[in-house]
């Protein structure tokens, strides 16, 4: 098994190139600064998660294809999307442990000249940060501590659940994202129902339910006067950043809470400019917190 903790195969997924490039831009810059080298996938297909509801078999094959491609490169996968990371981790574990299933899936991969051998691992960005880069290196990269900011975290479900397959942090009381936020110098506030789902998977099936879930979270964050919400998932980010104005209109409320990708927050603390970190791509106005960061320099 490849044990290189500073070199990964980058798994972008579908949502990020489709509409969340600020996350990719800031994550790549942050990782470069931390000394993590990224190699691109030789070819790509969706991790399979979106199709799990209609065909578990299709999900397994799509995920296994990516794992087999990564094995050919001899590198562990880093995924920015918790959905991709969760799926690749889960299928990797299933196929490594269940020989009969592995043989079954390999029959289909063989049709395309591929084979799953079980020689690599997949991790989400946050897991790489805490386990492989390490808190020490992250803290050392901070040149401009964001002590002036009070923010709230939002983990996203698939980075934690189902526990049996993901095996990362505690789904009932997750600490990693908080720790990583605090490493930037910012304060991370506690709030009600912190682990509640953003509702993104229900979009398209029932927008009403999905938006009510997102609104619930924004309400809870507003109650503790958080100045921003920090996410590490493209879908959660779309759910809050893209929909915040819509939710405000729909329910006649005002939030004005900027939604930042974690790499944008750490990037600021590393001394990178908002332009470098693609802050201009965020929908909710971020000028208030950026002004605070700039003013505190003196």
């Amino acid at each position, binding site marked *: 098994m490849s044990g290189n903790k500073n070199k990964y195969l980058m798994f*972008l997924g*579908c*949502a990020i*190139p*489709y*509409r969340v*490039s600020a996350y*990719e*831009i800031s994550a*790549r810059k942050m990782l470069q600064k931390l000394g993590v080298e990224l190699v*691109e*996938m*030789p*070819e*790509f*297909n*969706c991790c399979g998660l*979106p*199709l*799990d*509801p*209609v*065909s*578990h*078999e*299709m999900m397994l*094959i*799509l995920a296994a*294809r990516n794992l087999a491609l990564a094995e050919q490169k001899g590198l562990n996968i880093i995924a920015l999307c918790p959905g991709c990371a969760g799926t690749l981790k889960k299928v990797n574990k299933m196929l490594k442990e269940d020989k009969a*299933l592995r043989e079954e899936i390999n029959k*289909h*991969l063989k*049709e*395309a*000249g*591929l084979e799953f051998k079980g020689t690599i691992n997949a991790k989400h960005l946050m897991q790489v940060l805490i386990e492989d880069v390490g808190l020490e290196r992250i803290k050392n990269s901070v040149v401009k501590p964001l002590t002036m900011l009070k923010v709230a975290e939002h983990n996203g*479900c*698939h980075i934690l*659940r*189902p*526990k049996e397959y993901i095996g990362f942090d505690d*789904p*009932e009381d997750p600490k990693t994202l908080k720790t990583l936020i605090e490493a930037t110098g910012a304060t991370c506030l506690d709030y009600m129902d912190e*682990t*509640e*789902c953003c*509702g*993104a*998977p*229900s979009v*398209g*099936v*029932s927008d*009403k*339910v*999905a938006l*009510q*879930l997102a609104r*619930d979270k924004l309400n809870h964050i507003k109650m503790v006067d958080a100045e921003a919400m920090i996410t590490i998932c493209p879908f959660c980010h779309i759910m809050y950043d893209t929909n915040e104005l819509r939710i405000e209109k729909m329910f006649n409320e005002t939030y004005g809470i900027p939604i930042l990708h974690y790499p944008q927050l750490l990037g600021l603390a590393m001394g990178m400019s908002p332009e470098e970190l*693609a802050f201009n791509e965020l929908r909710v106005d971020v000028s208030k917190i950026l002004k605070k960061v700039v003013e505190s320099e003196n």
Partner: protein
Amino acid sequence: MSETEEKRIKASELDPKFKYEIAKMHGGEKLMRCFQCGTCTSDCPVARFSETYRPRQIIRMAQLGLRERVLGSDTLWLCAACFTCTDRCPQDVEVASVIRVLRNLAAEKGYIPQVFKEQAASILESGYAYKIPELRIKKRETSGLPPLPKGNSESIRKSLECVGFLKFLESSGEKK
């Protein structure tokens, strides 16, 4: 027919084999362990805002063998797959996975929300679940991002030939 009469379960509707069929599928094995405590529904974020989605009810209907009612129901598609129910179930039922098994069975019968057909068609064509706009692909260069890895359509199709539900895509493709 009154609402009460519509809801009333007739013995002829019950298919005792249904639960065994579910239990044979990956993720559905522990369906019969459910003792209806309701932890899943009370902790479900979707149930909090939906008037119809109740995981406990779906599990009970599946145990009873109400095949048609369960598989033909729109509420089945509301689960957000957050896996809170799975992690908190005291009987380790893997509720979200049972729901997924039921959706898979519904899909085999052709009950498939449009969004999944579109995503599957897109994956077969480009590898990506969404059609990435040309503008985004071009913008990557100016943003200093590497080119987007390409999907190998032929290879993807070859490894997915066995997937039964894909037969429903042809008809949806014509509609578009």
